[in-house]
Each structure stands twice: as C-alpha cells, then as structure tokens.
C-alpha cells in the first residue's frame, strides 16, 4: 500500500479542488448548472433588447457603409462567439482526452453545434453585409475562407461524434479532431494581417486604439456579452440533455423523471 504524500492530501482537501471533483459527477453537474440556465437566458434577453434598441434606433448610420453597417451588430458578436466556442471546445477536448472526465467530454461535444450555429450566422450576415458594401456576397479571401473552414471543422466534429455508436469512443475521436482543428483559430485571427484581404482589419482592440467611435462601440460590446450568455445557457442545456440520454438507466435520472424536474 502506498502512502499519500502531504501535498496530495492537502490538494484533495482544497475546497476548489473538491468542488471541481464534485462538478465531475453527472448528478451534481445536472442539478448545479440547472440553477444558472434561467438567469443566463434572462440576462441574454435583457442585453439583446438594450443592444438591438441602440443598434437600430440610437446609433447613427455609417458615413461610408450607410445603414447596412447595422448588420455588424449581429455579424461581429457572432464571429467572436464562433471562435470562442471553438476555443472552449478545444480546451474541454484537451482536458477530456487527458483526464477522461465524461462531463467535460460532453461539454466539448455540446459546444460544437452552438459554435456551428454562430459560424453560420457569421457567414450569412457577413455575406448580406458584403453585397451592398463590397458589391459581392462572397469572395475567396483568407478571412472568409478560414471562417468557412471553421464551419466544416464544427460539422466534422458533430459528424464524427454521431458516426460512432459507443459515446465515449465517439467523444475521444471527435475531441482529437477538435484539437487538430484548433490550428485554424490563429489563421482566422491573423488572416487579415498575413494576407492581403478584402475583409478589413480589426477595428476594435483590447489594448486601445479602436478605430470605431465609442457611440457605435458600446452597443457592439453589449451584444457581444449577450451572446456569451446565450452560448452559456445553450451549452449547459445541451449538456444536461446529453447526460440524461447517456444515463437513462441510472437512479439519479430516474429520480429526476419521477420528480418531474
């Protein structure tokens, strides 16, 4: 029998570590996350209402793009979210592959459809913005093409996960694909710097120097925060449904169905 080292024992008594271990339990995860979902939806709806009102009725039209620039209040937050959803999926996939935590595996797999939805919205809204602004719906420039590749990566992860019957095996294969596909993220981000593209460079910078007027900027930030809450609510809902589906013969699921929660 091996003796536990003092450091390991100390770590196991750490409340944060204990909480993370508890969150790895499907039953605990289901009950714990269920409390947040209504709040996430409520915050999303309030922020979207504020952002949309500002975008349509308060912000003036752009002197070059005219009214079509209002599409950017949907396109830009969706584009940022499409990248963030992939980052979250890749991080969860990495954790799932190393520590084999089923809940994290499910989180990674449930991030894919939501990320794919945001990528579709990005591409469609961008295309409809491009027609009046650039005179074309689509060009094969680096930013647009790499965003389209992102959509194919999401579809690949979803397809691979659904193609294998055994869910743990399927998740492992799809997690590996998600990790490999992460190479596309810096390509999307730096495409406007590395190549000469029709798509303009970044107008907003975290380190200052944003070229967009503050009256136009803040509704964009409100919309960007709103979609984070949409993503959170959707990801948690999907993960909880997936847990119910996988554990349908287990006692905790039966209790939930009996209690009608």
């Amino acid at each position: 029998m091996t003796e536990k080292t003092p450091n390991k024992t100390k770590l196991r008594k750490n409340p944060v570590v204990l909480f993370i271990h508890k969150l790895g339990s499907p039953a605990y995860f289901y009950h714990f996350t269920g409390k947040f979902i209504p709040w996430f939806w409520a915050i999303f709806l309030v922020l979207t209402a504020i952002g949309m009102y500002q975008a349509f009725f308060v912000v003036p039209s752009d002197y070059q793009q005219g009214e079509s620039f209002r599409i950017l209040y949907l396109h830009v937050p969706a584009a940022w979210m499409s990248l963030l959803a992939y980052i979250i999926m890749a991080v969860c996939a990495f954790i799932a592959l190393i520590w084999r935590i089923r809940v994290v595996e499910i989180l990674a797999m449930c991030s894919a459809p939501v990320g794919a939805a945001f990528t579709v919205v990005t591409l469609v809204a961008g295309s409809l913005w491009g027609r009046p602004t650039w005179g074309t719906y689509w060009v094969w420039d680096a930013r647009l093409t790499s965003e389209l590749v992102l959509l194919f990566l999401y579809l690949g992860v979803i397809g691979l996960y659904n193609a294998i019957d055994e869910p743990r095996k399927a998740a492992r294969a799809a997690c590996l694909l998600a990790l490999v596909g992460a190479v596309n993220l810096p390509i999307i981000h730096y495409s406007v710097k590395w190549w000469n593209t029709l798509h303009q460079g970044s107008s907003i910078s975290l380190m200052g120097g944003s070229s967009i007027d503050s009256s136009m900027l803040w509704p964009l930030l409100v919309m960007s925060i709103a979609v984070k809450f949409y993503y959170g609510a959707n990801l948690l809902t999907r993960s909880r449904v997936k847990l119910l589906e996988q554990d349908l013969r287990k006692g905790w699921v039966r209790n939930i169905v009996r209690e009608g929660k």
Partner: protein
Amino acid sequence: MDHTPFIVGSYAIGAIVLLWTAVAPLIKKKAIVRDIARLIQIEERNDSNP
C-alpha cells in the same frame, strides 16, 4: 441601393438559426424524459406482475 432587405434578411436568418439552436435540445429533452417515464412504467408493471 436600398439596404433594408439585407439588414432584415440577416437578422431574420440569425434569429431563426439561434432560435432553432436553443429550442432543439428542449424538444430532445422532452422526448428523452417521455421515453424514460415509459421505461419506468414498464419496469414497475413487470415488478408488480412477476
């Protein structure tokens, strides 16, 4: 060029895609819960009539 159809089109498609992405798991949950409830009923019936 009138920009209204492009603005309305992009927000309409965005709303449909995001609404469907939000509603789809709820429909699936309803179906799963119904299946589990049926399974419990069958098992309870079998237990009471061995």
